């Protein structure tokens, strides 16, 4: 009997710690906190900012965090034991779609213009194809120079797969370039030090690079993939089984926050909150663009409008984890040899989504 009572109490765990990374698309968590949506559900939520994805993952697995905002491929990788001891994971909801961008160093961008002189400046008026990099890649190969070097934020991330897809669409394979992992907060510095020629990262870091005159943003991830999950809520299957009521309450609060984020005026308010030191802690001028469908291109050039640059809520989907999307992500992992081709994707996705 005592056991039963204990189980009931656990189901209604009311004090929670949720991990997040200081990026613009943590907006749903911040909005839910600021608008008191968690309290309305009877929850006392502590948002705990993390500095690295790997540490966020380990803390979640160790139970220091109850749940966390995660890169969409992350729970799948965790479930499969890629980078950690395999742990059954669950994705109760999607927190955001799209939102990343690819930025080239100003140096590489001027090489692109030189190699494709017919383009002149019109290239920034639309998303740039990676095929424009092909002559540079070839030339470096034949001259025996270093490969172009790109950075993304984590191996199992949409950023990595979007970068790979963009290069592939331009006829460039992953073997033709070097890809390394750098935390978002280190990207601009690495580019400034000429350590990398380009990166794929989320807001605010593309804007930071453009405004600093260090980089040129050539394409938004919305223009590489059409409306795919970017961040999700991740929780261990075990936790979900122990606290189903609590999880439901959390997803209700976050669902309301995502809906609140559909309108432009609210987006600006969210950007103001995000700029606070405890959340993203970056300048409003760098956080706001991606939330307002604006993709900064180059210092001194006009920004480009990208409809759906960052989406928090799709009316058809209600932020539900969609199995087809899960399969799609697993296929990207396979394409980049992060996952064995013989894995039964349907089975994996039915366990996690």
């Amino acid at each position, binding site marked *: 009997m005592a056991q039963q009572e204990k189980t009931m109490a656990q189901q209604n765990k009311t004090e929670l710690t949720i991990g997040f990374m200081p990026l613009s698309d943590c907006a749903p968590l911040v909005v839910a906190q600021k608008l008191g949506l968690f309290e309305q559900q009877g929850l006392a939520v502590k948002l705990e900012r993390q500095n690295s994805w790997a540490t966020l993952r380990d803390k979640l697995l160790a139970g220091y965090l109850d749940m966390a905002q995660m890169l969409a491929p992350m729970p799948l990788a965790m479930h499969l034991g890629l*980078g950690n001891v395999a742990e059954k994971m669950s994705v109760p909801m999607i927190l955001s779609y799209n939102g990343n961008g690819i930025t080239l160093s100003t140096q590489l961008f001027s090489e692109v213009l030189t190699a494709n002189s017919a383009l002149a400046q019109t290239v920034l008026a639309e998303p740039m194809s990676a095929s424009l990099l092909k002559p540079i890649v070839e030339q470096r190969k034949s001259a025996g120079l270093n490969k172009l070097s790109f950075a993304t934020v984590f191996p199992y991330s949409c950023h990595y797969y979007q970068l790979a897809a963009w290069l592939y669409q331009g006829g460039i394979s992953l073997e033709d370039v070097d890809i390394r992992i750098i935390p978002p907060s280190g990207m601009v510095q690495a580019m400034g030090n000429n350590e990398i020629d380009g990166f794929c990262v989320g807001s605010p870091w593309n804007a930071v690079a453009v405004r600093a005159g260090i980089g040129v943003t050539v394409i938004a991830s919305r223009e590489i993939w059409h409306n795919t999950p970017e961040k999700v809520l991740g929780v261990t299957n075990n936790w979900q089984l122990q606290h189903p009521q609590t999880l439901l309450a959390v997803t209700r609060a976050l669902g309301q926050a995502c809906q609140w984020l559909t309108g432009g005026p609210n987006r600006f308010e969210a950007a103001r909150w995000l700029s606070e030191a405890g959340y993203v802690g970056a300048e409003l001028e760098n956080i706001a663009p991606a939330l307002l469908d604006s993709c900064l291109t180059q210092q001194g050039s006009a920004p480009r409008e990208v409809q759906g640059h960052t989406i928090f809520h799709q009316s058809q989907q209600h932020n539900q984890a969609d199995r087809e999307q899960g399969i799609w992500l697993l296929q990207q992992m396979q394409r980049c040899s992060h996952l064995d081709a013989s894995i039964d994707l349907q089975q994996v996705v039915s366990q996690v989504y």
Partner: protein
Amino acid sequence: MSESEPQQPLRVLLIDDDPQRAVALSAALDKSRYLVEHMIGADVSLLKQVDALQPDVIIIDIESPSRDILDSLHTLNSFNPKPIVMFSEQEDTNTINQSVHCGVSAYVTREVNTKRVRSILDAAVARFQQMQSLRNQLQETQQELASRKVVERAKVLLMETRNLSENEAYQMIRKMAMDNGQRMEQVAKNMIDIITTLSM
């Protein structure tokens, strides 16, 4: 563990944003046994450093953003994985260690007694080497298994399409491999491609 004392000093790369802590740790380690190189965590030239120094073990603060750079050493094949020890503020590091890939890294509490740091470092290196050799064995076995499967499949296809005996099919693949200076697996793969394309 009856490890004999290593003759070479252990090269330690310490990544910590707090210079005082770094100095304290370096001071606590016996200079003849450990060469400690300290760097600030936010420095993104970390991979260059790892490449240049080839440390035997890396110590990093769990809260450092650079942790993801190190974590990727295990994922991206272009880099050599290294044993990593993480300093954590958490009192109880047992739970977190259970979920971490065994041997890749270990979490230890920040307040660790410096005398114990030495045994932790030695254990991390030894366990990591053990894991690496296991991992290599596994990889070789998987590779061999996959290659056998391919040859088997090519054999069956040859038997079916050319009415050969099993032994004849095997000899045919082997002869082609020797003639072309290719591995049997590669020849088998090409054959499967050709036969399946033709029979479409």
